């Protein structure tokens, strides 16, 4: 079984935020305005954050780190968030009671809560992705590595009478990245480019000293 991971090369990343926009559209992430940001209610599954490492700042595209030892799933009282066999941290929206314990337990602060029912300007109403459910108010959501795309890839592969491989499935952010800074794949497959990059000496995981074993791997810039 695959263990999906994402490698982000900070030397290639230009900080253009195309991944942020692609993700919002792909996943029907609710619309946010500067006012909602000021209230601390920005809805986004990926955002750029400036992180100080060894005396200099790096800008990281930050999404759910899909930890192999996720602190958020342990604390969920209803198993609405759990680690699935492929290493994806799943969110079951209909089961979530909205206690927000997982959002508080996540050291990366990447889980967001639907404080209000999602809203889009009228001009955007027709742009919703029919493959992704719109979340109701009162539940937690976050990056799923575009899990719906994996389901579709499996379906396609099954129709073609073969097994799905890493080439069949990429998340929207990876597909969109104009600088090709993001590589997605099966970290357990030695032939997968993502696995090879994850073993690079430039590779690091953010806050890896916390022992949560993220599967989002960054490649250090400037060497």
């Amino acid at each position, binding site marked *: 079984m695959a263990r999906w991971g994402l490698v982000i090369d900070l030397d290639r990343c230009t900080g253009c935020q195309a991944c942020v926009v692609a993700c919002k559209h792909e996943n029907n992430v609710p619309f946010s305005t500067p006012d909602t940001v000021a*209230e*601390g209610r920005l809805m986004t599954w990926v955002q750029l954050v400036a992180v100080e490492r060894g005396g200099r700042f790096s800008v990281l595209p930050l999404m759910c780190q899909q930890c192999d030892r996720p*602190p958020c799933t342990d*604390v969920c009282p209803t198993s609405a968030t759990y680690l699935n066999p492929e290493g994806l941290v799943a969110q079951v929206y209909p*089961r979530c009671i909205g206690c927000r*314990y997982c959002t*508080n337990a996540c050291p990366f602060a990447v889980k967001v809560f639907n*404080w209000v029912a999602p809203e889009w300007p009228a001009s955007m109403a027709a742009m919703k992705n029919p493959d992704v459910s719109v979340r109701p108010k009162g539940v937690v959501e976050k990056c799923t590595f575009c899990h719906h795309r994996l389901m579709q890839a499996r379906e396609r592969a099954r129709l073609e009478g073969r097994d799905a491989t890493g080439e069949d499935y990429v998340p929207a952010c990876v597909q969109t990245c104009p600088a090709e800074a993001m590589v997605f794949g099966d970290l357990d497959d030695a032939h997968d480019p993502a696995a090879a990059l994850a073993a690079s000496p430039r590779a690091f995981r953010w806050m890896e000293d916390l022992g949560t074993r993220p599967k989002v791997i960054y490649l250090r810039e400037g060497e």
Partner: protein
Amino acid sequence: MSQPEIQPIVDPILTVGPSFRRWAVVLGAVVAWSITAWVWQLVHGLGATHLGRPVYWGLYITNFVFFIGVSHAGTLISAILRIVHAEWRRPITRMAEVITVLVLFFGVGNILLDLGRPDRALNVFLHPHLRSPLLWDVSSISVYLTCSTIYLYLPLIPDIAVLRERTSGWRRWLYQHLAIGWTGTPAQWHRLEKAIGVMAILVIPVAVSVHTVVSWVFAMTIQPMWHSSIFGPYFVVGAIFSGIAAIITAMVIVRKVYGLEAYLKPVHFNNLGILLLVMCCLWFYFTFAEHLTAWYAHEPNELTVFDAKLFGRFAPLFWAMFVFCFVVPFAILANNRTRTITGTLVASISVNIGMWLERFTIVVPSLSNPRAPVHTFIYSPSWVEWSLMAGCFAAFALLYMGFTKLFPIISMWELAPEPAVAPIGPAEAPAAPKPPLNLAEA
């Protein structure tokens, strides 16, 4: 001989005065207002609060921890005093135990207020995840609520039987059912005392576990200044501290309103004041240890929260907490001359305010300063949150008042003088059930 003695306790149960009505109307209005706020929140969701990312928890969780803390008032204190045969406890146990049972509902209620999807609260039972400290909370609070309700009810039975004989109509019907056939035979006394003795011992570890588990909701995460191994005992000490303060406050009010000066004497306030002083010193010790270790180690994320608490945005709340929890009560209670009824009341109100601030400055500063450098904001609760908090306090007071109109707020049968059995109280001496028997038959 006991007839005139218990009359002042029975009288206020059966009569409702104008000042009771006035207070009931005022408190009822506050509760009605908070129900409006609650409906507003149900319609608009948690958007009605001022919570956001990363301050996902605020006033409701603060109140949850505070109320669960106050619940240690009763059961734990009355059980410990019962076991160590502290005879002066007799007139105050009932008052304390009622606080415990009532306040637990508001602790649980605040968790429900905090849920984004209260309609799915039952998922906690339908799909329980045993590794979640919130589920540990659900378990231990349910056990505690059950135990403390039984522990409140058992010693009530002989008193209910007394009321059964003195009332008619719906009250008689109610007391008849609640007295479950109590006639005061020696066999019944024997069984009752045995049951109370068992519950008194059982309830102590349950009470300790409850507040330990509440602290673990925070301590089990790896968030700065939450992930602390002393949180369990620190929260238990804080809980007993605020619990005693709540008892003293209730005692002063009940004593004044129902004219029970003959039962609640200065010695009770003095003794509870000394207990409060001991807890005050313990609280200082834990607070000092907790903050010294965070500061000395200089772990950057811990230090950010530490600075925000002691010198930054939360400093006014933190130092107010320190004054209310330590400076004021210590100054009053350490002095024999000021450890009067008024003095202990002032100290108790101060402790209650301070302990609420302590809960707030544990919950919010850590969340406001997360490890990840995401956009943060200044949390100040919305009108809905404040209204629901006011509603909780008003509803608690209302229910407490209601209890005093249904049941004796002082345990009548336990007031029996016991010169004959000096070293052992009747409650713990199944071999000597005579004194309560005499009283009940009188």
